[in-house]
């Protein structure tokens, strides 16, 4: 028996660094499962890569090409655009779509999006986590009052997605807020940072992407803004974002759902079993344990554990997409289980349910010391209770627009 993962990877083009890291980590973990455990309960995991260059239509092409392969477990595109183009298709084909750390916020609502899983962190939770971190740095949420925060966002739909939620949080906590756009690709930010300098904010939140991140750090240095008051979001938190900035990045802080570093047991096993057998996916071994690589590893853990969960119910065999969905909807990894998986400290925990497809991931903050990331905070919980109604408002609107019936329970979404 085999369980198949079609991979819409991107190893070329502007986002190649992220793609090689993430898919490298994912494949490394799948390899580990096969080598170390002989598969998930004896079911081998297989995969096939299709290069997308991060382009939607190439992603769709790969989808159409690979979708009919038997035993497809789940899709993991790591691209908002591709994910969007797939929502209708995977819903029709009844295979889960995993958008770890990215994707539509409202797809958290499993009642409306039964097959979409923005695992660990959606953009709103990320925003809330950020603000909670700043509050903790200031010594409490009440201390945010009167503070000034600038959000510097990438001029794309991704960048703009959190504009309203930042506004809500600003109103709620009473900090003043300015949101400034950096046009794509973001290789010039002189005017934005001059405006920031004039605004004299306490913090700058960097909601960047690709080349925008190092340029932001460099330009911040040019206008004399301290790096340790710049907080990067989840797509501004990798080594690739800071290394090009050189010294300017020293002290920069970024959010993450998974710590970096190779000291975690699971990574050590990957190094030994996979790289030892010369089956490692990364060309450059120095990148083992980097942010994107670890995200790939965590993504691998979540996918494999979802299969394991589903196998417990449906039997140790090749599962259908719907059965894997069931597995994801019951994916409960508490800290103890995470530790058993050798990932204690790598990520905190997850508890996905049929209606909460994010699974309430916690975030932590890491600081760049010039050569590596160091965790500088506890695992912080976003304000889920505050966010849930907002998400539901959006998802029910979507359901109405598209004529989707809202699920009332975790049963098979189609048979209802």
């Amino acid at each position, binding site marked *: 028996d085999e369980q198949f993962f079609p991979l819409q990877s991107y*190893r*070329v*083009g*502007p986002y*190649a*660094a992220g793609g*090689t890291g993430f898919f490298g980590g994912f494949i490394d973990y799948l390899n580990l499962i096969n080598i170390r455990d002989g598969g998930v309960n004896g079911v081998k995991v297989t995969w096939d890569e299709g290069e997308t260059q991060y382009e939607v239509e190439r992603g769709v092409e790969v989808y159409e090409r690979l979708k009919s392969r038997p035993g497809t477990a789940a899709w993991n595109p790591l691209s908002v655009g591709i994910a969007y183009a797939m929502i209708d298709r995977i819903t029709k084909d009844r295979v889960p779509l995993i958008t770890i750390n990215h994707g539509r916020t409202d797809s958290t609502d499993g009642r409306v999006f039964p097959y979409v899983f923005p695992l660990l962190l959606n953009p709103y939770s990320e925003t809330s986590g950020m603000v909670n971190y700043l509050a903790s740095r200031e010594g409490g949420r009440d201390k945010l009052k009167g503070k000034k925060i600038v959000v510097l966002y990438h*001029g794309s739909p991704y960048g703009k997605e959190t504009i309203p939620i930042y506004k809500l949080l600003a109103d709620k906590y009473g900090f003043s807020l300015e949101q*400034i*756009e*950096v*046009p*794509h*690709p973001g*290789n*010039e930010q*002189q*005017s*934005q940072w*001059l*405006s920031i300098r*004039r605004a004299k904010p306490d913090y700058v939140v960097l909601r960047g992407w*690709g*080349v925008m991140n*190092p*340029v932001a750090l*460099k330009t911040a*240095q*040019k*206008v*004399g803004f301290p790096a340790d008051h710049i907080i990067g979001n989840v797509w501004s938190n990798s080594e*690739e974002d800071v*290394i*090009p*900035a*050189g*010294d*300017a990045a020293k002290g920069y802080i970024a959010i993450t759902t998974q710590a970096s570093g190779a000291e975690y047991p699971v990574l050590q096993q990957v190094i030994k079993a996979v790289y030892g057998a010369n089956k490692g996916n990364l*060309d*450059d071994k120095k*990148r083992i344990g980097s942010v994107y690589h670890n995200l790939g590893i965590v993504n691998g853990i979540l996918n494999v554990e979802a299969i394991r969960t589903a196998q417990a119910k449906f039997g140790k065999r090749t599962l259908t997409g719907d059965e894997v969905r069931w597995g994801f909807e019951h994916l409960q990894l508490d800290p103890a289980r995470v530790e058993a998986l050798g990932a204690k400290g790598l990520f905190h925990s997850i508890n996905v349910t049929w209606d909460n497809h994010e699974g309430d991931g916690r975030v932590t903050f890491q600081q760049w010391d010039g050569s590596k990331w160091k965790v500088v905070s506890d695992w912080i919980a976003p304000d889920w209770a505050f966010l849930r109604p907002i998400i539901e408002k959006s998802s029910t609107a979507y359901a109405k627009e598209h004529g989707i019936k809202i699920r009332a329970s975790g049963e098979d979404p189609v048979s209802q």
Partner: protein
Amino acid sequence: MFDYQFLIEVLIGGLLSGVMYSLVAIGFVLIYKTSGVLNFAQGAMLLFAALTFVSLVERGTPFVAALAATLAIMIALGIAVERTVLRPLVNQPPITLFMATLGLSYVIEGAAQLLWGTQVHGLDIGISDTPFEVAGVLISRLDLFAAAVAGGLVALFALFFRYTRTGLSFRAVADDQFAALAVGLRLPRVWGAVWAVAGIVALVGGLLWGARLGVQFSLSLVVLKALPVLVLGGFDSIAGAIVGGLLVGAIEKLAEVYVGPFFGGGIEVWAAYVVALGFLLIRPSGLFGQKLVERV
């Protein structure tokens, strides 16, 4: 009250970013001047040069040796391009050549990444991007250095084109390749030389931009910043490249800071194009561009 200090800061910041655009634009101008074609591979060459250099350095080559090696490679590239692309396409319409440079950019980009990988590299060229303050205005050392380099290049090329016969033959080749052949100009040499020089300019631009952006794929996108510079200054004017660069930089930043807020920001991407367009309607071949010679 209007904040003049800030205005000046924005203006200077804009002018200095503009110089960085000029660095890229010069490469375009050189090639346009000798073949009448917009070389879309300039961005790829920039990436290739910077990537080669940084990879050599990371593999332990001393700075100067890496620089020399990259220089040699860029010259070889220029000559190779002449052999394989330009020579067979002599006397073809500009759009055909334009397309060929697009194909070329595929080849160069692919080769660069294949050779050196897709990782993101930091690049330290020994000039820090830290600011110092002059009358309350922060100025970065790297910017100043870039300005000096751009100025130097422009002066060099301008003198070259004005006072040497090679300059004259460059212009002749761009005008009419068929006639150039007929009078015995050695097109292969002219093109080989120019592409090699464009390669060197790409290296200079690549290093300076790489120091700011990091050496990564996005480096090839800086060409988009150079295009409005070209139309504003004139495709075939070296001086235009620098004046255009300054103008574009200033326009962009002032527009973003003072006009942007009315649109919700982010207008930088097109502001320069729109201004350049408005300007072109008055002078259809840019500030310093050669006017179209056409009579019946």
